[in-house]
């Protein structure tokens, strides 16, 4: 329908790669902001080597999953590509926070790794598996948490689209099923290939919501050789009947950590973490109120990454999380109050749901640049957002169980059907006019609901597009195929022409 222009946006990139030949010119003011923030990001990234250069070198030359983080600078560029004005600053600040947190987490892992020598840190770490919130660590001030899957799989693939399938190939050739969720499969591959760091006093696995994770957890537990417990609180959508069991099980997990580490659970310290978590939640609620406005400036991808971090890695443990949230809230309030429009290309407001593709984390950025489709609500962000009781112990433990039940990849994919149909309520709330549903082909969680979701969208007259992807492996459904699915929908159902025809079809299959 639209012909490619002679001058095309992609000429800035090497053909086949997401590596830019030169940086984007954003006008004097925005380019200065971008340059200034880039300097900060370089300083943050340098900390990874500076903290312990010898160990960092050993880790980089041993772990296949670590080198992709060298691409974090390019990843930041990709996720902020569609941002201008206040949106650019917000995007940079979110990404800097994420970079800093990632660097700190990777430093923790490298420092504690006994593969490179005995150290005092290994025994102080409690490993939490599969995006289960580490909030309980707040009650153990002398311990620190480690999370694994995201660093080996999702985040590594967000930096380099080909990072993850190296490990999923390993599990395929090992004989394990290859049609299961790639997120947990990656860690299984890491474990089989002896690429798990040697650290941790104990491991808390979770009932990450599928057979894939159960399969992979068992492999990881055997390889890690540390005591483990399955932190399997019920996943029955807001079912009060499970309360007694859930609270009892959280207590078991606490006792397990106490037994493994010799530490005692400190309720005062835990409630301090809970208060911090509630503050993070409050800020997020205020942001969502602002998101209804056409002047909401926050680009979706940096916010998604920030919120994922806040729920799965921090949950009140990282004080900077709320600090950055407050700063961004102030900027958003200013934009909405003064009606500053930093998303002028917006033609459609979309709600995005389902598990986003790790190898195409910046798909929302492309949607905006190519088609003017502004992502105003990411349903994954609306995982647990309730307040946990700050005084009563039993209520607080029920809150922890609910936090695990409603974690990312659980709340809107498993546990019932009312939670999955919430997407239509959020669609109304955020004044959207279309829905993009990421259809992870290996994710069984939502498969039984796809018919109902489609039927409901048809009844309500809501344009809904399914974007199939393979989460970690771009070889089965490459980025170009994801774009094609969206292009077909926009041309055919939405009757739109692209804002930038040069972004319709291009090759970015080779690297990063």
């Amino acid at each position, binding site marked *: *329908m639209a012909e490619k222009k002679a001058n095309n946006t992609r000429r800035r990139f090497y053909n086949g790669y997401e590596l830019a030949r030169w940086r984007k010119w954003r006008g004097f003011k925005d380019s200065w902001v971008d340059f200034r923030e880039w300097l900060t990001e370089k300083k943050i990234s340098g900390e990874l080597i500076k903290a312990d250069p010898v160990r960092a070198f050993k880790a980089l030359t041993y772990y296949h999953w670590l080198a992709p983080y060298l691409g974090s600078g390019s990843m930041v560029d990709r996720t902020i590509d569609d941002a201008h004005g206040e949106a650019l600053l917000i995007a940079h600040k979110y990404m800097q926070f994420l970079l800093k947190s990632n660097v700190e987490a990777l430093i923790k892992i490298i420092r504690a790794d006994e593969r490179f020598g005995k150290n005092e840190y290994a025994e102080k770490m409690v490993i939490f598996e599969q995006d289960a919130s580490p909030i309980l660590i707040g009650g153990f001030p002398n311990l620190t948490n480690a999370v694994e899957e995201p660093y080996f799989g999702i985040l590594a693939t967000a930096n380099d689209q080909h990072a993850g399938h190296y490990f999923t190939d390993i599990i395929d050739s090992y004989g394990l099923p290859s049609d299961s969720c790639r997120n947990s499969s990656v860690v299984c591959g890491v474990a089989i290939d002896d690429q798990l760091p040697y650290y941790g006093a104990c491991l808390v696995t979770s009932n990450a919501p599928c057979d894939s994770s159960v399969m992979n957890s068992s492999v990881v537990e055997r390889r890690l050789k540390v005591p483990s417990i399955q932190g399997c609180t019920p996943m029955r959508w807001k079912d009060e009947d499970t309360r007694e069991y859930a609270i009892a099980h959280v207590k078991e997990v606490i006792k397990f950590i106490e037994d493994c580490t010799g530490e005692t659970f400190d309720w005062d310290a835990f409630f301090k973490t809970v208060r911090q978590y509630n503050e993070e939640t409050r800020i997020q609620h205020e942001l969502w109120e602002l998101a209804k406005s056409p002047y909401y400036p926050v680009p979706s991808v940096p916010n998604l990454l920030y919120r994922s971090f806040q729920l799965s890695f921090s949950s009140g443990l990282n004080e900077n999380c709320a600090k950055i949230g407050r700063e961004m809230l102030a900027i958003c309030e200013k934009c909405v109050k003064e009606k500053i429009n930093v998303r002028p290309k917006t033609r459609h407001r979309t709600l995005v749901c389902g598990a986003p593709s790790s190898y195409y984390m910046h798909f929302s950025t492309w949607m905006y640049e190519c088609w003017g489709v502004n992502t105003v609500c990411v349903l994954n962000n609306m995982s647990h957002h309730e307040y946990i009781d700050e005084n009563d112990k039993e209520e607080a433990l029920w809150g922890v169980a609910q936090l695990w039940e409603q974690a990312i990849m659980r709340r809107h994919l498993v546990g019932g059907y009312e939670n999955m149909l919430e997407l239509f309520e959020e669609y109304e709330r955020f004044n959207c006019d279309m829905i993009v549903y990421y259809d992870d082909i290996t994710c069984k969680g939502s498969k039984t609901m796809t*018919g109902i979701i*489609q039927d409901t969208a*048809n009844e309500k007259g809501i*344009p*809904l597009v399914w974007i199939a992807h393979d989460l970690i492996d771009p070889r089965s459904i490459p980025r170009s195929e994801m774009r094609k699915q969206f292009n*077909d929908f926009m*041309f*055919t*159902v939405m*009757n739109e022409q692209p804002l930038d025809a040069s972004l319709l079809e291009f090759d970015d299959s080779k690297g990063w």
Partner: protein
Amino acid sequence: MKYYGGCDVGSTYTKAVIVDDTGKIAASVIQRSRMNAAESSEKAMADCISQVPGINSTADLGYIVGTGYGRNRVPFADENVSEISCHAMGVHTVDPTVKAIIDIGGQDVKGIAVAPDGTVKNFAMNDKCAAGTGRFYEAMARSFEMSLEEFSTLSLKAKTAVPITAQCTVFAESEVIALVGEGKAPEEIAAGIQMAVARRCFVMAKKAGAVNSITLTGGCAKNEGLKKAIEKVLKIKVTELSVDPQLMGALGAAEFARRKGGAKA
């Protein structure tokens, strides 16, 4: 009299249609596609043009729209439109009462919900798997050592259908050969094949919101046995189109060309 052209370059067949400025079909052509989509489109359109007195080349056409699998390789097209939109418009031109289409092409199957103005309301597509497509039927006809036309009416003679359990074209072919070897009646096996395809179409049709008033387009629409099977599975009567259903994409493209060309004039 002004004329407008539409060219639908498919994986298996290339279709070309020329309409006059009232939208009436002046000429049409269906030809086997070659490896080179540009050559396929040039030949088809040239043959179509030769049927219309007074025009000698594509330059004499007011506007041309390309569509189909090879739509970006139609060198003489003024514009390319998605085949989904063209099928919807083509069917709407022939019968505006039709609200849903199942398009079974050479390599893909689509369910299309049509809006009252002929635009697309929603669609669902399977372009990853050959099962239930023209390729599948070619493989099945080969197993029966029949032509496609002979195979398509074979199932009409059956009283019952032998279920085909394999989902995959490759395995289905093996299964059919095994059933033939077991001495099962060919018409009953053929009926089983038609039911298997119809069930796949059911999913596409439902995803596209098809409720009633459905029609078939694409080459497989001429398969009588499939039509009967789809009516049985969907419990809806399939609307017969007065124009060759395989031409719907090209006709829709020509109609888009007529509207665009007319507006330009």
